[in-house]
């Protein structure tokens, strides 16, 4: 018996699968997560993978939470330790009273284990060697066998997994039977030889509702389809490649003319990120909705073109799926570390519009809205995902579209308007919002043509190096940026149940951890008002939120507090009033981390009456 009381919980635990990359474990593990969802229990899987194709360690963490906490939690209740390379540290990560599931084919000395956990051994290799002769099959079915054993150990409805196997191999029907067989080999072994179920178990619930299981990159790509993107140019880079892949897949289904089989889209895998953004800008200049998907290093390479897009006022949409930098950094780990480099991308005075989706649902919505904003504002729009949102499946609100919605193509002067004698000056601020009219190339034989350039020019697009028209233009660009404040998604505020002098600002993938942490912070007796920032430039409510509190925590996933700096810089706020809470080791931020960091800070401020003892 373990020295710590075994954890006993239903529908509330974390399982971590430790595997070797390239062993086929990913699809088995994902099937496990889906099975939890199908049982009506909210689930949040996270794939922690190396920059490698085969051989290095990989983990798949499944958080099961009927209460609906979908952020990373930290700690492991059940470790499925399938990778000898990481065995020791995997065991070290188990919570006291937790469980270890391992391949017991080869006996291990007791020193390899811990005395405060429950150890469950299944001789997986021996079973596979007995059942299969083909080495590849031995490897692949081993994954299904451990899933089978888990169904018994966690008291899962095996029919749910059987059905998922049927769905997964639909069309490749001869694979269904062997997979079902493997599933039951594992399940039967556990039932006969192990004490089932464990203290942690699953029970059917009704807490999933109509939610869907989707990766942010796929949702963002679908947003681009719905938002009317016709040109996509990209260069492969983790973690954004799957966004372009998803766009390709969605377009093949949704954008091919059923009769002619012709494509209502063009996708170019470019030679580098410079060409990607160049193609996007060329297409945007010519009136098509265009985007690229990239990550931090790609943003660095695109700097010159981003400045052109800003200064020449050409619509462009850039999905930045952030990963840990600087340089190549940790290419398969998550961070929110491109805020500064995107907000002020390129040389000279520039500022760009950033959108911060919190999850796949918003990745879809902002992904579509970005194209309206790009056309309306005639400037690059950055949709700031990160690896956690982009490459993990998230249980998300179903995607929805209002069929009466029309695209906002912005201020485009037509041939009819030109013919009717309407004055056209490409950089003329006719409406006072800083946004000029443009014409598409080829509009009118004699009117409305202009020369687009990255050099300074006057209101009629004529080249000039005079100071006054340059300043006039730069001031208009600032007016335009101010106009963006009311067009971009507004911050959302959640007020604490009890009056408080403190607030917290957060954004993007920090959301689910923050939502959970707030309960933990409140349980420690602290109230905290929350603001989730969803875009830059900041809406005026950001200023008032900070003004309304003694100080405000800014929670983000980077070293330097980039969002905090942006708020200080753009809202003119005394930095002392913004307390950075920073998590940047490449793993997704957890509720435990936030609650501890903020809780400890607030504890220090709480005046505790001294106990008087007589």
């Amino acid at each position, binding site marked *: 018996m373990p020295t710590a009381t075994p954890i006993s919980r239903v529908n509330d635990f974390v399982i971590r699968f430790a595997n070797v990359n390239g062993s086929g474990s990913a699809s088995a593990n994902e099937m496990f997560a889906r099975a939890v969802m199908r049982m009506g229990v909210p689930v949040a899987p996270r794939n922690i993978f190396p920059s490698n194709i085969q051989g290095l360690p990989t983990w798949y963490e499944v958080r099961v939470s009927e209460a609906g906490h979908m952020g990373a939690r930290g700690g492991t209740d059940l470790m499925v330790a399938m990778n000898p390379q990481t065995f020791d540290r995997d065991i070290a990560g188990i919570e006291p009273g937790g469980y270890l599931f391992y391949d017991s084919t080869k006996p291990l000395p007791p020193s390899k284990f811990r005395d405060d956990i429950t150890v469950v051994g299944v001789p997986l290799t021996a079973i596979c060697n007995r059942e299969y002769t083909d080495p590849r099959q031995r490897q692949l079915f081993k994954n299904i066998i451990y899933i089978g054993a888990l169904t018994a150990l966690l008291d899962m409805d095996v029919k749910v997994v059987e059905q998922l196997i049927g769905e997964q191999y639909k069309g490749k029907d001869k694979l269904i039977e062997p997979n079902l067989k493997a599933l039951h080999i594992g399940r039967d072994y556990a039932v006969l030889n192990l004490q089932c179920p464990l203290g942690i178990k699953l029970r059917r619930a009704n807490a999933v509702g109509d939610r869907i299981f989707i990766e942010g990159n796929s949702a963002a790509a679908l947003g681009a389809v719905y938002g009317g993107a016709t*040109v996509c140019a990209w260069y492969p880079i983790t973690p954004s490649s799957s966004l372009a892949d998803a766009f390709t897949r969605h377009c093949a289904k949704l954008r091919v003319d059923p009769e002619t089989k012709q494509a209502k889209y063009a996708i170019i895998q*470019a030679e580098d990120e410079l060409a990607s953004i160049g*193609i996007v800008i060329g297409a945007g*200049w010519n*009136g098509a909705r265009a985007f690229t998907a990239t990550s931090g290093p790609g943003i660095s390479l695109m700097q010159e*073109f981003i400045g052109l897009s800003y200064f020449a006022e050409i619509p462009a949409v850039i999905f930045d799926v952030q990963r840990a930098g600087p340089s190549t950094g940790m290419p398969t780990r998550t961070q929110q570390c491109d805020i500064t480099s995107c907000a002020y991308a390129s040389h000279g005075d520039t500022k760009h519009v950033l959108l911060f989706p919190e999850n796949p649902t918003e990745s879809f919505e902002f992904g579509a809205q970005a194209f309206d904003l790009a056309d309306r504002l005639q400037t690059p729009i950055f949709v700031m995902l990160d690896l956690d949102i982009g490459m993990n499946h998230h249980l998300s609100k*179903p995607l929805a579209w209002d069929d009466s919605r029309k695209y906002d193509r912005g201020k485009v002067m037509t041939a009819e308007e030109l013919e009717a004698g309407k004055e056209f000056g490409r950089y003329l601020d006719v409406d006072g919002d800083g946004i000029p009219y443009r014409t598409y*190339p*080829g509009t009118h034989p004699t009117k409305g043509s202009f020369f*687009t350039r990255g050099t300074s020019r006057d209101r009629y697009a004529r080249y000039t190096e005079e100071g006054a028209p340059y300043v006039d233009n730069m001031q208009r660009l600032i007016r335009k940026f101010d106009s963006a404040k009311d067009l971009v998604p507004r911050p959302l505020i959640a007020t604490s149940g009890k009056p408080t002098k403190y607030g917290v600002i957060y954004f993007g993938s920090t959301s689910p951890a923050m939502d959970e942490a707030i309960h933990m912070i409140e349980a420690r007796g602290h109230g905290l008002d929350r603001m989730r920032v969803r875009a830059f430039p900041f809406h005026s409510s950001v200023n008032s939120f900070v003004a309304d509190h003694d100080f405000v925590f800014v929670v983000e996933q980077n070293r330097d507090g980039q969002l905090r700096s942006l708020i200080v810089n753009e809202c003119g706020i005394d930095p002392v009033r913004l307390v950075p809470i920073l998590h940047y080791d490449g793993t997704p931020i957890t509720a435990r981390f936030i609650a501890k960091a903020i809780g400890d800070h607030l504890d220090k401020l709480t005046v505790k009456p001294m106990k008087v003892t007589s």
Partner: protein
Amino acid sequence: MTYLAKPKFHHPDLPKNSLGYTHRDYEGTVSTLCAGCGHDSITGAIIQSCFELSIEPHRVAKISGIGCSSKTPTYFLGNSHGFNSVHGRMPSVLTGANLANRDLIYLGVSGDGDSASIGLGQFAHCLRRGVNMVYIVENNGVYGLTKGQFSATADRGSKSKRGVINTDNSIDLVAMALQLGASFVARSFSGDKQQLVPIIKAAIAHKGAAFIDVISPCVMFNNHAGSTKSFDFVREHNEAVNRLDFISSRMPIEVKYEPGAVEIVEQHDGSKLALRKLDADYELHDRAAALGFLQHHAAKGQIVTGLLYVEKEPEDLHAHLRTVDAPLNALDEKELCPGQAALEKFNASLR
């Protein structure tokens, strides 16, 4: 006299083309390049070509990078949209523009620094993809705007104005274009408008990636003895393989050519190229032979000019991507947005 505004009036009897436009309707603003610059002759050749082809000026998109050559789109086709983009990146901007609207004519103007040095990658990849365009490099072997540094097309052994001998090997963009799959490849000389104009016209009619390298001497920094891009050197070493007459699809062939002396090449749009061969053995549709011919003559210090290669059945990027016939920039939400019904199906597949 670049500080003078161009007068708007013109002679009432100026000849008009079939659209009723005069030569003047194809001009731009006054050139700000140096007097005698080869690039201005190329500008003149472009204006003449478009006028003679009766192209509607606004149906051309002219796109360039950075440098002297890239300034020239301001000096022609004043009623066309132009885009002076960033250094070496004209090809990607043009590719994107072309994808957005396949119905316009795309004229990319670049220089040797722009295409062979900083932009060599983009030069290569847009030709590989077969973007339907005319890609003109105004090649003077030198950086003019920054005052006379060698570019990557400067020949090894050629001398700069300051007396420095270039020790790097040169890049031959024509050989590269052939190797990369351009479906129309030519080289000409800014000082030979009679050769250049029909080549530009044929390139515009060509449906695919058309590349023209035009040797265009820099009168300020690369027109001295010892330079291999000077007027004198190019005239002396010009090895023209053919002379061209361009016959548009609308015009009957009026000139009677002696059989054997002329090869008629029909293009996809119905236009014809009447090729007067100066080198009897030169085969226009043989990519490998063209490369060999170039290298053979380059070794002898000769500059091969003329229409060097035409693919018989060119395909462009839109054909590769099977895009719809309508320009992508003309599609609206009805065409592009699959709507709530499709989304519900999608949602259902993810539960």
